[in-house]
Each structure stands twice: as structure tokens, then as C-alpha cells.
């Protein structure tokens, strides 16, 4: 009797323990943060991707040159770390590049590659267009979130950025890409639930091996003709966008991905 009681107790505590461990999202309240994400965006673009205005560029280039000259004269080589912005998330490749450049700083001719970022002609090589897209896109996104602070969609956005394996910029790049491919059918009712969830299985290069509409049954329900049209348009968008802009690393995290298509905001706006 006592033995089984002990077993039972032990088992239950493990269960509770495991539940707490593995299902934390059930306990956690949705994080109620103000919907401002621009700060994190600056973080992403540690290299300034936005092309300067011609005048500003000259000034910035000059000040950069001056600064560097000053740095060279005042400080010794170990400036590598000091140069980095504190809020930067260092990617392994970038770190190496930076170091190389800084090591050669003594030679004034070698400074050029870094300055080159801001030259419009060279921009294509250095600037990651994905990030620009993400930036532009984010700016629009902000407007929307400002308008509708209480909107559920924005909340889930926040949740995503914390819970998923994609960084904000990666998520935004993907989102921006799909925005461009998705022709939203205009004959949709305003007051119905318009959420279409699509689960994708992806290859490493971003091509789709399998796509599945999660609320498949709803498509054939009477009075839900619009839903079928909407779901099909979403599927079409995903197929048109192939290969999707996925990050180069972390395949295991995003080999399965769920896209939630919801045009409600757009139709009402």
C-alpha cells in the first residue's frame, strides 16, 4: 500500500515537474510589451545598409577617415573589440572580417573597403537586400501596430520573436518576400475569421517539399467559399515565392515552418 503510494507520489511529482519544464508557455502570460520593435532593428543592421544622401555621405566619409586616423595614431592594434558596438550580435563570419580589416588599419589604403559600404556603386556587393527589405517593411509594420495596439496579431508577432528560432530580421525578410507574392483576393467578407494557417516543410535552399493547409476541413464547408479562395491564394503565394528566403544556418529550427495568413488588417485599412 505504502509502496504504491510512494510510487504514485513520485510519478505525480515527476509529471508536474515535467509539465512545468516542458509546457512553460501554458503558465506564461502573453508578454505585454509595447509594440515597438525598431530598436531591435537597428541592432540587426550593424553595418548601415541605408544609403546616405550624397552630401551626408561625404561628411560621414570624412569624419570616418578622421576618426580612423586618430584611432591609428592614438591606439595600438587591440582596438578590435573596442570598435564593436556593444549591442551588436556578432555573427561568426563578420567577426573575422572585421578583425582582418582592423589589423591592417595602419595602412591607409586598406581602410577603403570599409568605407566602401556607403558608396552607392559598390552597394550591391555589400548591402544585403534582404535586410533593406526587412527594414522598409518594418517601417510599415510599425505604422500598423501603432494604429492597433491591442490587435492580437501584433501580440503573436512579439511572441514569435521570442519563441522561434528566427531572428527578427530573418523573419521580416521572409515576411517581406511573401508580401510581394501574395495577391490578396478582394472579395472577402470583412467580418469573418480570415486566418489561413499553412504548414510548410522546407529544404535547405528554401524550396518547399510539402505544403499543408491546417484548417483543411473548413474549405469545403457551406458558406465558406471565400475561405477556399483565400487559402488557395496563400498557397499560390508560397509557391510563387519559392525558394523562400531562409537563414543560411539553423536548418533544424526552420525545416518545418507555419505561415499564418491574415488579410483582415489590410482589408479594413
Amino acid at each position, binding site marked *: 500500500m505504502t509502496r504504491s503510494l510512494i510510487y504514485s507520489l513520485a510519478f505525480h511529482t515527476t509529471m508536474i515537474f515535467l509539465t512545468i519544464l516542458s509546457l512553460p508557455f501554458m503558465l506564461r502570460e502573453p508578454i505585454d510589451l509595447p509594440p515597438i520593435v525598431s530598436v531591435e532593428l537597428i541592432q540587426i543592421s550593424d553595418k548601415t545598409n541605408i544609403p546616405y544622401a550624397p552630401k551626408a555621405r561625404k561628411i560621414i566619409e570624412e569624419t570616418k577617415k578622421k576618426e580612423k586616423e586618430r584611432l591609428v595614431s592614438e591606439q595600438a592594434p587591440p582596438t578590435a573589440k573596442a570598435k564593436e558596438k556593444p549591442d551588436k550580435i556578432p555573427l561568426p563570419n563578420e567577426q573575422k572580417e572585421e578583425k582582418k580589416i582592423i589589423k591592417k588599419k595602419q595602412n591607409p589604403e586598406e581602410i577603403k573597403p570599409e568605407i566602401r559600404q556607403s558608396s552607392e556603386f559598390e552597394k550591391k556587393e555589400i548591402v544585403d537586400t534582404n535586410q533593406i527589405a526587412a527594414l522598409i517593411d518594418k517601417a510599415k509594420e510599425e505604422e500598423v501596430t501603432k494604429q492597433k495596439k491591442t490587435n492580437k496579431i501584433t501580440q503573436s508577432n512579439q511572441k514569435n520573436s521570442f519563441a522561434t528560432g528566427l531572428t527578427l530580421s530573418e523573419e521580416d525578410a521572409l515576411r517581406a518576400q511573401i508580401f510581394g507574392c501574395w495577391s490578396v483576393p*478582394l472579395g472577402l467578407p470583412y467580418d469573418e475569421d480570415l486566418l489561413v494557417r499553412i504548414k510548410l516543410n522546407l529544404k535547405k535552399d528554401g524550396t518547399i517539399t510539402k505544403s499543408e493547409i491546417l484548417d483543411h476541413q473548413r474549405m469545403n464547408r457551406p458558406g465558406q467559399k471565400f475561405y477556399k479562395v483565400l487559402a488557395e491564394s496563400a498557397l499560390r503565394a508560397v509557391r510563387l515565392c519559392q525558394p523562400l528566403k531562409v537563414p543560411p544556418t539553423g536548418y533544424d529550427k526552420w525545416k518545418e515552418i507555419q505561415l499564418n495568413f491574415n488579410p483582415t488588417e489590410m482589408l479594413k485599412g
Partner: protein
Amino acid sequence: MKKTILIVLLNFLLINKSYSLIEVDITRGNLDPLPIAVSPLHVDINSERYKDLKIKELGNNISKIIEHNFRSTGLFNPLKKEAFVQKPDIAHLKPRFEDWRLIKAQALVTGKILIKNEKLKVEFRLWDLAAGKEMTALAFTTTPSNWRRVAHIISDKIYERLTGENGYFDTRIIYVAESGPKSQRVKKLAIMDQDGAKTKYLTLGNELVLTPRFNPTNQMVTYMSYFRNMPRVYLLDIETGTQEVVGNFPGMTFAPRFSPDGKKIVMSFAKDGNSDIFTMNLETRVVERITDHSSIDTSPSFSPDGKFIAFNSDRSGLQQIYVMRSDGSGVKRITFGNGIYGTPVWSPRGDLIAFTKMRKGKFYIGVMRTDGTGERLLTENFYQEAPSWSPNGRVIVFYRETKAGLKGEGFSAKLWSIDITGYNERQLKTETDASDPSWSSLLSK
């Protein structure tokens, strides 16, 4: 024991994993017109001759009408035929999707026609090029002279499949055709297909005609015409051409409009300088008073469920729009904006009311919700009015008067259409000047 614990543990790990699926919210897309390829319909070689119909060109002509319909919606972008890579007959059997995707098409329409025993058989397929599959396929049989309607019906079916909304192409518009100088204007009742083809004049122009309105359930029209300088309300059956006067009232009757079931007419009726709203049962000819107020109540329009009537009235001073129950109770003012509001028309979907607004010498066509909120002015001009809804409630047709001639001495009235989003404003082609349009319901349901 260990095993069970292990299984339980594994289970939890798996559950945890499945919940960490990356989710990305897509809340916006583009509103660019959908690129669609309409391949000319393949004409079967076994087709027989039919009167003076040019069979060889029929396939191409039908596809042109479909393209024209699509372009007029502003929602589709029909691609140029020169870019097409596959011949119509092969494309209809099994299109090479890669080839069509190359020209950036997202949907493809193919078809086949056959005329045999004086019957025209038209078959079409709609292909989703991204998915590489057929979305819909239908065949129609009719008399060959009906080929234009077949093209419109095909357009409706495709529109329906791609937008989730009913089409409005297989419809007609009745309007007042105008000609001559302003002081001696000749006004005739005219009807045409929604794309401007097949215009037919229904009256001779001896008497002035005004405000024709379609019965939402059939091809019956009510309109106003002057008889010995007295306006009367008439009923006209378009199919048979029979015409009758709706009752004989001592005063003047105005702005007649059908109820959604087509069994009643609602109109305003003036006596001693005061006008009120009445309904008349077309079967029993019983007239019922709806409003009884010392102000001028006009332009009544039923809601599609028949439970409410919107009308305009100057009971608060300036003319504004009011809504009441169809028995006249519960009158509620819904417009409070600056300016004068008039000609309310309830959308066939029931969600919006279209109206004309006059403010500071300008005329606006707008829409608002049925409680008066969410007012959106779609278009502005010096003179425009009389909005009428397409049967799916997406497009509004109205007429606009503009100055004509080099010095602006004359004037011209034309029909225009606009999407309820405020985009895609277009002039409809009419043979003469035109005013007071009314859009029919779908000819085939």
C-alpha cells in the same frame, strides 16, 4: 518501470518540440491585379456553319470579351496573347505549366467550342498555374447567337472562383439615353449589356423618361414618365415589351423602386407641396402609407432583406438620410455630416448604403455602413448622382455631367463605374449621352 518513464519523458520532449514550430504572420499582400492568361478558345474542326456567324473567329472573340471583362474589374491583368507559347487546342488538353509560368501568368483560361445541329457548345477550364492543377471546368450549350452571353457567364464563373465573390458580367444596365440641347433634351429608355454592347432603345423619346429601376428578381423595370405634364410610374417588361401604368394617383409620384422580392414598389408621392413615402403591392394594387410627416420624404430604397427602408428627408432642416423599419416605425437619422445627402441605395449584400452628397458646390458619390458610420466618399465632381449597385455589391455605376465643347458651352452626361474601394473609376461606353443607370441582377443564376 524505467521504460515507462522513458516513454513519458520522450513524449513530453516530442510535445515540446511540436509546439516550438516557427510561426510567421503574413498580414499583408499586394493588391496588384492578378496576371491571367486567357487563351483563345479552340474551335473544333467538326463545327458546322451557322447563319452569318464567323465561326473561325468565335474562339478569339469570346476570349476577348472575357479579357475585357477582367480588365474592367481592375482586379485582373489579362496578359498579351502574343506572349502565349502554346496553341489553344493543346493548352486546353493539358497546358505546359512551366511555359505559362514563364510569362508570369498565375491563372490560365482555356476552352473549346463546337457548333453542331444549330447548337453552340462551349467548354472552358481554369488552371492554377502555381499549383499545376485544374481549378474549375464547365460546359454550356446554347443557341449560337447567344455567344456573347456565354463569354459573360464564363467570366462570372472564373471571377467567382478566383475572388470568392459572385460575378456581375452576365448583367444588363438600363439607363436614360439623352440627346439634343439642354432645353430640348430627348430622353429615351435604353438597355445594354454591362460591357456596353447590344444597346437597345425601349421608348421612342416622345415623352420624358426618368429613373428606370430593375426588379431584382426578374427582367421587369419600373420608371417614371411624363404624361400630359404629369409624372407617372410605369412598369415595363423588357422581354415582352408590355407596359402599364402603376395606378392612377391624383398627385405626383416619384422615384419608384422595387422591393427585394419584386412584389412591391416603394415610391414617394406628392400632394399639396408635401411628399411622403408609400408602398404599393403589385398583385393587389393596395397602396400603403409608410411615412406621415410634414417634411419632404423621397428616394426610398429597401434593404435586401426587406426589413428596412432608407430614404432622404429634410425634417431636420437640410436633407439627410434616414432609415426606418419597412412599416414606417423606428425612424432614425443616420447622416450627420456637413452637406446635403440624397439618393440612398442599399447594397445587395446589405452591408453598405451608397449615396450622393452635395457640399460646397461639389457632388460626391460615397458609401457608408447602414448605421451611418464609416462614411467613405469615393469620387468627387461638379455634378454626379444616381448610384446603382452591381448585383454583387462591389461596383457602383452612376452618371456624371461635364462641360463639353471648346468653350464649355455644351454639356455631356456619361455613365461611370467605380469600385467600392474607391479605385478603378471607369467611363462606360454608351452610344449617346446617358443618365440614371440601374444595374440588373444576374441574368442566369
